[in-house]
């Protein structure tokens, strides 16, 4: 009987471990992520990181350079105006 109970205990533990490993659990505020959830979270994080990298390496420099170009045009215009009229 003791062996049977121990066997049941092992089976139960393995089942719980499998469940926790695959699905994850939430015990009173402590969120235990399963393997799938960890992968999803990792993918999300990677996506966000890529987005941020694009913003930092492409979008922001292009916006800044466009502003600088506009500023240079304006400076040039002002200089021409000064030369011509003052």
């Amino acid at each position: 009987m003791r062996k049977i109970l121990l066997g049941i205990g092992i089976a139960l533990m393995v089942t719980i471990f499998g469940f926790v490993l695959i699905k994850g659990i939430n015990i009173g505020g402590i969120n235990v992520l399963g393997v799938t959830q960890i992968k999803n979270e990792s993918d999300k994080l990677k996506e966000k990181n890529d987005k941020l990298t694009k913003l930092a390496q492409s979008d922001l420099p292009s916006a800044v350079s466009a502003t600088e170009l506009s500023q240079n045009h304006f400076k040039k215009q002002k200089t021409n105006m000064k030369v011509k009229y003052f």
Partner: protein
Amino acid sequence: MEEQPYLQYIMPTLYQISQRVQEIILEAPMKISKVYLTGSLALINNVDLYFQEGLSQAECEILKPNFLEQVLDKINIKDYIEVNSAIALAVQRLNDTLKGMNFKKLSLSERLKQEMKITMPESKKRPAKEGENKKLNLKLNLDMDFKGKLAPMEKNFVRAIYGVLILIIVFIILSSILCSGFKKKNEELDLLTTKQNAEIAKANQDKKTLDSTRLKYQNLLKQLQEINNRISEVTQSRNQIPNLLNQIMYRIPEEVQLISIENTTDKHIVIKAKCNEYTQLGYFIAKLKTSEILTNVVSSSGVKSNNVVSVTIEGDLP
């Protein structure tokens, strides 16, 4: 003492027994709450009260077979106390067949354990014949008793349970650390993204402001240009009329009389002249053209009345 002449010999022995039992109770690793008295000495009147006085921690009781409870009143104590040992031996032997037979009154937990005890009938009594299936000799021990030493296999089972438990705990800890890490990194990324977006929005706003200011300046420049043009035109046209009149004065033939000179629009000039001869008027028109006093010169056909020919000459200032 006279009524009980042997008491003085018995008491020291009882006292020794009581002291030894007391010592055993105190030294025992588990709590002993009940002491059962049995044997011939248990027949002594109030012997249980005597032991109770000495053993304050435990309850003293004379051992009685519990299966005789219903008939105890009818049977003299001597009849069963003296044969308690025999009953015990008999019960020990019959234990397998007479279930529930016990001198001790079972507690609820013990009774539960007893109820849950499943033992398959033995087939030892019949010797197995050669070739007979050995399964008949198998005994399934479903004992719920968790006391006692663990068999090696059971030890392995327990180790496996501990192993899986440790794995679960380690996984939970690692997953929690990962979860909090993900949360932290997500927050950091969100913050950085918000900052970057704010910077981009700021840059775009600056560009927009610069562009609108540049457009404003461009319009102002255009307006200034127009004003300049107007001023230069005005300056130019201010001298053109006197120059025209001066040139006409030197080139007009003596016979030709000017009736009127009109500046109808911007640079357009309409001259009305008269003369007695066509040739003189023709000469005047040709002079206007060749000397480039006026451009695009056109003249109306002359109208003659009272020997005076009148023409209208139109042209633009150069």
